[in-house]
């Protein structure tokens, strides 16, 4: 199959003053793409051709290519990870596109995710949010016996729904406000429903929200684009969980 690609090319990293305004969308044509290729394999082919011609290959993030690491981060035709629901860009295949399609590929767009080069963004802001509170403090040593602490199945399911987050940033990319509330909410909800999460319950949500705000993400307006774009289909319930938890902690503090 044949595809026409429009890809964001940016040669130097964005800064807090310069957001990469000198970058631009560049048109490429590929006319022998197999429908069975993954989206990233299609980009690999493009890069081989560019390298052979002595041009700079397109920089894009990828790692496991199994849909579990959260490294791939492509905005494809205005949707994070492309048109399929619950699918990362690496698990997307060219059969999801029509022969002759025009495909627009852009990096995640958010002030908090500065573009490093082409389609690669720095998601360090997510790491700093995690460091602010998305953990529990336990003594190291031998692993605790699996069923020593009983957790009702319904609670375990709620925690697990949130824990499936792979931190890819699709929620921020999809949000009209570049808000990170689905991500931060997932971190809150992950621990909220488990007994292990109770000791640091208040501190966690206060620190998470403070760090999220400081990083310059936008504010949720309950449009739920994040939920629809999330490759792990994390529900917006986690945002309501975080709102409740934050108010509870603020009242107590």
């Amino acid at each position, binding site marked *: 199959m044949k595809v026409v690609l429009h890809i964001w090319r940016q040669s130097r990293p964005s800064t807090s003053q310069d957001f990469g305004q000198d970058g631009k969308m560049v048109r490429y044509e590929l006319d022998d793409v197999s429908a069975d290729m993954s989206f990233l394999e299609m980009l690999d082919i493009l890069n081989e051709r560019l390298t052979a011609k002595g041009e700079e290959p397109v920089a894009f993030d990828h790692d496991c290519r199994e849909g579990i690491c959260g490294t791939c981060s492509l905005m494809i035709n205005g*949707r994070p990870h492309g048109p399929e629901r619950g699918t990362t860009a690496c698990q997307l295949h060219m059969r999801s596109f029509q022969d002759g399609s025009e495909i627009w590929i852009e990096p995640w767009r958010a002030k908090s995710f500065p573009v490093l080069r082409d389609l690669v963004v720095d998601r360090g802001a997510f790491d700093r949010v995690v460091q602010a509170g998305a953990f529990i403090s336990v003594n190291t040593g031998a692993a605790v016996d699996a069923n020593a602490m009983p957790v009702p199945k319904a609670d375990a399911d709620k925690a697990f729904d949130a824990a499936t987050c792979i931190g890819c940033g699709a929620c921020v990319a999809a949000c009209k406000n570049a808000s990170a509330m689905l991500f931060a909410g997932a971190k809150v909800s992950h621990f909220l429903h488990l007994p292990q999460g109770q000791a640091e319950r208040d501190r966690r949500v206060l620190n998470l929200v403070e760090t999220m705000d400081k990083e310059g993400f936008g504010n*949720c307006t309950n*449009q739920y684009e994040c939920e*629809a774009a999330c490759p792990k289909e994390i529900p917006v319930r986690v945002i309501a*969980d975080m*709102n409740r938890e934050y108010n509870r902690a603020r009242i107590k503090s």
Partner: protein
Amino acid sequence: MNWMLDYWRSSIGGKVTMAITGLLLFGFLVGHLAGNLLLLSGPEAMNEYAAFLKSKGALLWVVRCGLLAVFVLHVITGIRLARENRNARPIAYARPDTIQASLASRSMVFTGLSTLVFVVYHLLHFTVGVTNPEHFTMETSAGGHNVYGMVTASFSVVGIALAYVAFQVVLFFHLAHGVQSLAHTLGLHHERFTPMIKTASVGVAALITGGNIFLVLSVLLGIVEVQS
């Protein structure tokens, strides 16, 4: 007081401010429509109700000031959040798309600012009497403020009536998203009830704005008697 400002400045604090002030303003809209429905009961009922409100003196001013404070807080917080949201994405997508965000949710800033403009006009029209002084100064046979006459005389002017109807359509979109959004911001999310809240949100928005449109059209189409 520092903790309040600190809370307001946080993302969730700002959202909750929007939700609570939004809920109060929604409550006002319900009361406003309920009062205006007296138009259907004729001039005496409407003017008596207006005189009753005016007779409260200081209490009326307390309520008015409270309402104004809530309104101003809603507008200022909304502008602050919208600016932060704009700044959070300095470069827009070359080819944007929308998966499931409703038209109403995407036009909240536009419908909100339109409401601000309309409220100013509405106050100049019916509360201060600047735009149509000839309607505002109408008197009852007893010499009191003739609210029924003022409203019916105004809404029998096609241009004014259509402006009010057009604004109610804008307000419908603001409420249709606003009511369900405030529930979620206040932490209400439930597998069974959230879909009901979403439907109810559109329903109450339609009831409020539909009720207002019905009153305007009742005058324009001569279903209620026009005094002039």
